[in-house]
Structure formats: C-alpha cells, structure tokens
C-alpha cells in the first residue's frame, strides 16, 4: 500500500511542480473562469442577479474551466511524449490515475478559491453564510466532476479530435453531479436556507463520488492498455 501512495505522491508532485514553475494552467484557467463570469453577468444581471442564478453560474464556470484544465494537463503529457513513459513505469496504473487526479483537484480548488468570492461579490450571493456546508458541496462536487474528467481526459489523450470529444463525453455523464451541486448550493442561497436539503444533496454527491471513483479506478487500467 505504501508503494501505491508513493507513486501517487510522485505523480502529483511532478504535476504540481511543473505548474508551480510555469503557472500556465492556473493563469489560463483563472482568466477563462473570469471571462465566463463576465458573460453570465452580462446575461443574467439586470437590477440585481436573477433569483438563484448565482448557484448555476458558479457551477457552470467550474465545469467549463475544469474541462479546459483537464484537456491541457494531458495535452502537456502528449506534447512532451511523456504519457507513454508514465504508463511504462513499473507501478500500479491506478496509482498514476490517483496522482493525476490529485494534481487536477489542486488546480481546480485553487481556481475555486478565486472564483467563489468573485461570484459572491458580483452577484450579491451569500456564499459564505454556511462555510462548512458550502465547502462540502465544493469539495465533493469537484471530486465527482474531476474523477470522471481525469479518466476521460487520459483515455482521450491519444484519440483523434480529442478536444471536441472531451466535453461531449464528460458533460452527459457528470450532469448528475452538476444537478446535485447546483441544487445544493441553491438550497443554501435560498431566502429561507434549507439546510436539510443541502445535506441531502451532499449525501447524494458522496454516493456519486464513491460510484464514479470506484468505476474510474477499475476502468483506468484496461482503457489505458494498448
């Protein structure tokens, strides 16, 4: 087991180290997220934001910028021809997957730290009223989205027209996660916050995460074998 986690740590540290030096993904992802927020502000804010639009806007921005980041991380591996080297390494394939997943989660959580206050500010949304529940929604929602996203991005890394195929495959599969995240956030933003409702959606997110993570760990090995 310790060998497994050692590989996870090495892969994740490699990705985070590259990112810390180049800041390519974090800069582009955050700027893209900002552009999305502006587009939504133009579309949905009249006198003030429409109803519970903020919850939807927040999660659409996370999904869009997440897709962009997912595509890029594996593009980098492919460009440097290191994907094959990574897969040839004498280690458990699921460990490589988990390492990659942690790298992407680090990236997305950093983006969220910037995007969440921005959405709260621009749409007058009380996103910080229930910090624990809100963090739980963000954490489990992002894990659910990224664990499928990492698998699909990895398997599409060598496919033709991968840029178009990634969102096409990823969105229908992850929409259950999106529904739970948006409805959960919406329940917290309500004029009369429904805490029980938010807790129910968090439980649902946790069960999605467990199912999707198990499936991803199981499919990564056969899908990445040529």
């Amino acid at each position, binding site marked *: 087991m310790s060998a497994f986690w050692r590989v996870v740590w090495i892969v994740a540290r490699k990705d985070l180290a590259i990112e810390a030096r180049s800041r390519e993904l974090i800069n582009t992802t955050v700027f893209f997220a900002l552009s999305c927020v502006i587009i939504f502000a133009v579309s949905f804010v009249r006198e003030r934001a429409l109803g519970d639009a903020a919850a939807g806007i927040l999660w659409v921005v996370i999904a869009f910028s997440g897709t962009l980041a997912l595509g890029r991380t594996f593009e980098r591996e492919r460009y440097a021809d290191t994907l094959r080297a990574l897969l040839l390494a004498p280690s458990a394939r699921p460990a490589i997957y988990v390492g990659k997943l942690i790298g992407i989660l680090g990236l997305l959580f950093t983006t969220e730290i910037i995007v969440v206050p921005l959405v709260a500010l621009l749409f007058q949304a009380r996103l910080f009223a229930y910090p624990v529940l809100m963090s739980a929604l963000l954490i489990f929602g992002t894990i659910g989205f990224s664990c499928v996203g990492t698998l699909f991005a990895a*398997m599409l890394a060598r496919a*033709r027209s991968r840029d178009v195929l990634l969102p096409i495959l990823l969105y229908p599969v992850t929409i259950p996660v999106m529904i739970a995240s948006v409805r959960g956030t919406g329940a917290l933003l309500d004029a009369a916050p429904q805490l029980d409702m938010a807790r129910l959606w968090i439980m649902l997110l946790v069960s999605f995460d467990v199912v999707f993570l198990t499936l991803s760990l199981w499919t990564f090995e056969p899908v990445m074998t040529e």
Partner: protein
Amino acid sequence: MRKAFPLLLGAAGLIFLTAPVVIARAPFESTMGLVQKIFYFHMPPAMLMLLSAFFCGVMSAIYLVKRRAQYDWIAHAAAELTVVFGAIAMVTGPLWARKAWGVWWVWDPRLTMSLLMWMIFVSYLLLRRYGGYGSETLAAGLAVFGMATSPFVYISVNIWRTIHPLTTVVPTLPVDFAVPLWYAFAGFLLLYISLLTLRVRLEEQRAAVDLLYLESEE
C-alpha cells in the same frame, strides 16, 4: 442465431401488424381517453432503451476484461439500438405529454435522466466514429459509465415523486390494459433481438472481409 433470424423478424412483423387491433380493442382510460393508447408504443421502447443500455454496459465491461472482439460487436450494436429505441421513446413521450400534461416537456428527474442516458449513448457513437484508432476500448469505458447511470434513472422517479407515473404502475395494471401492453412489448423485444442479431452479423462479416483482405495482401 442465423437460422432463427427470419423466424424472429416474422414474429415481430406479425405482432406489429396485429398490434393496432389489440390496442384498439383495449378499453379507454377514464381520465385521458384515446391519448392514453400511445402508452403501448411509449413504454416498451423506453424500457428497452434502459435494458439495452444496461446490456451494452455489461458487454463492454466483459470486453474490457476479456478483450474478445465479439463482445465489442454486441456492445456496439446494443449502443446503436439504445439510441434508436430511445429516439422512439423521446418522440412518443412528448406527444403524449402535450395532451396529458399540457406541455411537450417537463424537467422532471425521470425525463431528464432518460434524456441524459440517451445522450451518453449518442456520445458513445460519436466517439466510435470520430475517435480514430483504439476508440473501441475508450467507448467500452464510456459505456460502463453509461450503465452506472441507468439504475439512477429507474430509481429517480421513485425517490423524487413526480408527475411521471411511478414504475409500480406496470405490475398493478388491470388485465385489459396489461394484455396489449405486453403484446406490444413482445413485438418491440423481438424487433430488438432481430436487429441486434443482424447488426452483430454485419460486424462479423466485416471482420471476416478484413481478414481475407489482409491474407490476399501477403
């Protein structure tokens, strides 16, 4: 399976020819009247879409483990039929909904999830078509995820309680309604099996032609 094919297709054809008579003879439903009769052409393909998606997922999972082309052919055929039968359900559903609920479409969990499942299998076909070399393995991975959403579709209506009839309606249906329903279901099922056989046979022959071509090259 090859010899059974004309028999299957014949039986399916016979059922489809006689089904209108059976459906016309069924009693009128008290509140919805004539419109309710679309049920006999909505529920069987919708149910077959679910079963087919599940079947495709199972075949894909087996393919990922065993790596035999036959399982991939069956999974591919099942995915195509999921999309076809899903399309039938997606057309008959709104027609019925317009008359019964007054709107073409509502975003209730069951409708949403069925649409999503249908979309997952459309994306499966897109992946196979445009994914290039090695896309059959990737598509198999996707189908496993597609299958994982299918129990959620079935359970969703029972958890969320919505406008769509509960799935427990079917076993408690009065005999007068149940007979034409299962008659139509048998027709759709036979059609499904015959199309599946035909499609797998096509892949089989395609593989055989490829093999012959390679041999003649050498």
